[in-house]
C-alpha cells in the first residue's frame, strides 16, 4: 500500500516557544481509516494544521497525496475534505449558503452542479430539514454536521477529521461512524483524531498515539490492542477440569478466577471448535466460550499513563 500521508521529523514550535509537535514520523496507508489518538494538548490539531498547509513546520517535511505541503496546497487540497478543530460557519448565512460559500472557494468545483452537491452533502449528514435555518441558530451538533457536510461537497481521496463526533448525540455518532465506513468502502482514506477510544476501535483499521508532541506508537488497531493476541476465556463451574483440558489443547498462560478460565490461545492453525469439542467430551459444563480482545483503552492507558494530564 502506498502512503497517503507521510511525515518525516515533523516539528512545530509555536512563537511562544511551545514545542507542540516533536520529530513526528507518521505514515498513513492508502485506504485505511486512521485513528489519531492523544490526550488534550498532545499536538493532534497542530499536526493536522501542518498537513493542511495552514501553518509552516519549524522542521521536517509533510507529504500529502504525493505533494509536499504547504507548497502543493493548490493541487492536493481539492482532493481532501477537512474538519479542523470544530466547524466554523457564517452565522448570518443559512446552512445551504454556508456550503455554497465554501464550495465557491474550491477552484475545481463546478458552479453548475453546486446546488445538487450542496443538497447531497446536507442529505448525507441529515441536515436537510435545517438547510434554510441561519447557522447562528444551529445547535453544537448541527454545526458539527454542517462542518462535515462541507468536507463532503466533492468526492475526496482523503478526509481529515479532527474530533468529528464532538458534540454529537449518540444517534449522530453512530451515523458518523457508518458514514466513515461507507466512505472508506468507496476508497477514501480517512484520518480522524479523537479522544474516544471505543470509537477508534470500532471504525479504525490503523491508529497512532501521540503524547506531548511525540509519537508513542502506530500500527494496525488489532496489533496495538494487546499486541494482536486476544485471550481465550471459558466460563464454567468445572474450572479444574477445564484448565487441564485446555492445557492439553495447547492453551498457555492459564489463569483461573472464580468461574472463569483464561489463557493465550494456541497458534492460528488450531480450530477453536476443536477446543470446545474437547471440553464437552471431557464432561466440562461450558457456559461461555470466546476469545476476548484486549481493549485499545488498556493499550492506550499503558502507553500514556493513568493520569490523563494535559501537557504543560
Amino acid at each position, binding site marked *: 500500500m502506498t502512503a497517503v500521508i507521510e511525515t518525516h521529523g515533523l516539528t512545530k514550535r509555536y512563537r511562544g516557544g511551545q514545542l507542540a509537535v516533536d520529530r513526528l514520523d507518521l505514515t498513513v496507508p492508502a485506504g485505511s481509516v486512521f485513528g489519531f489518538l492523544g490526550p488534550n494538548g498532545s499536538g493532534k490539531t497542530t499536526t493536522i494544521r501542518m498537513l493542511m498547509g*495552514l501553518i509552516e513546520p519549524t522542521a521536517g517535511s509533510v507529504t500529502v497525496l504525493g505533494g509536499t505541503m504547504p507548497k502543493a496546497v493548490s493541487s492536493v487540497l481539492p*482532493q481532501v475534505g477537512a474538519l479542523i478543530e470544530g466547524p466554523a460557519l457564517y452565522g448570518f448565512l443559512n446552512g445551504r449558503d454556508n456550503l455554497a460559500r465554501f464550495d465557491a472557494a474550491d477552484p475545481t468545483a463546478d*458552479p453548475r452542479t453546486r446546488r445538487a452537491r450542496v443538497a447531497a452533502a446536507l442529505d448525507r449528514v441529515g441536515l436537510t430539514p435545517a438547510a434554510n435555518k441561519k447557522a447562528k441558530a444551529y445547535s453544537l451538533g448541527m454545526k458539527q454536521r454542517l462542518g462535515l457536510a*462541507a468536507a463532503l461537497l466533492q468526492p475526496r481521496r482523503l478526509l481529515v477529521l479532527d474530533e468529528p463526533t464532538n458534540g454529537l448525540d449518540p444517534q449522530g455518532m453512530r451515523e458518523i461512524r457508518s458514514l466513515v465506513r461507507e466512505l472508506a468502502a468507496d476508497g477514501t482514506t480517512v484520518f480522524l483524531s479523537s479522544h474516544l477510544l471505543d470509537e477508534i476501535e470500532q471504525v479504525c483499521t490503523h491508529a497512532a498515539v501521540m503524547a506531548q508532541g511525540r509519537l508513542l506508537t502506530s500500527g494496525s488497531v488489532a496489533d496495538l490492542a494487546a499486541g494482536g493476541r486476544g485471550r481465550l476465556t471459558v466460563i464454567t463451574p468445572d474450572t479444574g477440569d477445564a484448565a487441564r483440558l485446555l492445557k492439553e489443547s495447547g492453551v498457555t498462560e492459564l489463569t483461573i478466577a472464580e468461574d472463569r478460565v483464561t489463557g493465550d490461545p494456541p497458534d492460528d492453525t488450531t480450530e477453536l471448535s476443536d477446543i470446545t469439542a474437547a471440553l464437552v467430551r471431557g464432561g466440562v459444563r461450558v457456559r461461555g466460550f470466546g476469545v476476548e480482545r484486549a481493549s485499545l483503552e488498556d493499550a492506550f492507558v499503558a502507553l500514556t499513563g493513568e493520569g490523563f494530564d494535559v501537557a504543560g
Partner: protein
Amino acid sequence: MSQAEHTGTEGAVTAHTETTGKAGPPAAASTAVAGEPRARRPQWTLGLFHSELLTTLRRWRTLALLGVLAAVPILIGIAVRIETGGGGGPDGGHGGEGPAFITQITNNGLFLVFAALAATLPVFLPMAVGVVAGDAIAGEANAGTLRYLLVAPAGRTRLLLAKYATVLAFCLLATLVVAVSALIVGALLFPLGEVTTISGTTISFTEGLLRAALIAVVVAASLAGFAAVGLFVSTLASSGIAAMATTVGLLITVQILGTIPQLDAIHPYLFPHHWMSFSDLMREPLYWDEVRQNLGLQALYAAVFGSAAWARFTTKDINA
C-alpha cells in the same frame, strides 16, 4: 443516500453503490477511487470574487453602513430646505459658509449630489470602507472560516485579490449609494435644471448628470489607497474588531496630521491630500491635473500596502 451523488465533476466517478450503513471492505472493492484530481476552472477567480461580494453584502453590518451613508444626503437636503424656508426662491447667492456646493442646492437639486459627496468623503465614506476592509481577513480569521476557505483551497494570493476587489466594489457601491440618495432627495425637494459650473458657464442637465457620475467614480477611486491600508491592517490583526478600530483610528490620525501646518512637508504624501480635487471636474473645461495626482497617489498606496498585505498573508500561520 441521495441520487445527487452522481454529480461529481468532470468524470470524477463516484463509485457509490447503495451501501448505507454497511461496513464494507476498504479500497480493494471499489472500481474507481473517490475524488480523483479535477481540473481547475479558468473563470474560478471571478466565482470567488462573486461569492466574496455576496457574502460581504449579506452582512448586517455592511447594510447598516450603507443605510447611514444613504441618510446623509437626506439630512443635508432637509436641513437646506428648512434653512431656506421652503420657498426655493433664488436667494442662493454666493458667499455662504459651509461645505462646498451647499449654496447652489436651492437652485438646482443636482448640487445635492456634489454637496453630499463633499460632506461624506472626509470621514463617513472612508470610515465605512475602513470597517469593511479591516474586517475582510481578520474577521474571517477570528470566526475560523478563513481556515476552511484556505483548505478549500481558495489560495492565499487569490483570496487576497478577491478580498481587495470586493473592498473596491464596496467603495464604488458606497459612493453610488450617497450619490443616488442625494439625487433622489434633490429631485424631490428642489428644482432641477441647467447646471452652472464653477467656471461660471452653463451646461445642460444631462451633462450635469454625466459629470455627477464621473465624480462618483473618481470619489470611489480616491478610496482605493485607504482600502489597501485597511486590508494590510486586516492581515496583521487577529480580531475583526481590532482591525476595524485600528483602520478607522489611522484614518482619523492622518486627517488630523493633514490639518497641522507645521507638517507641510509630508502633506502631499498623505492619502487624503487630494481627495477634494474632484470639484475640479465641475469646471469648464475639465481640469484634470490634481485629479490625476490624486489617482497616482492612490495607486502608489495600493501598490505599497497591497504588497505588504500579500507578503504578510502568504506567509502567515493560520492558527484560529
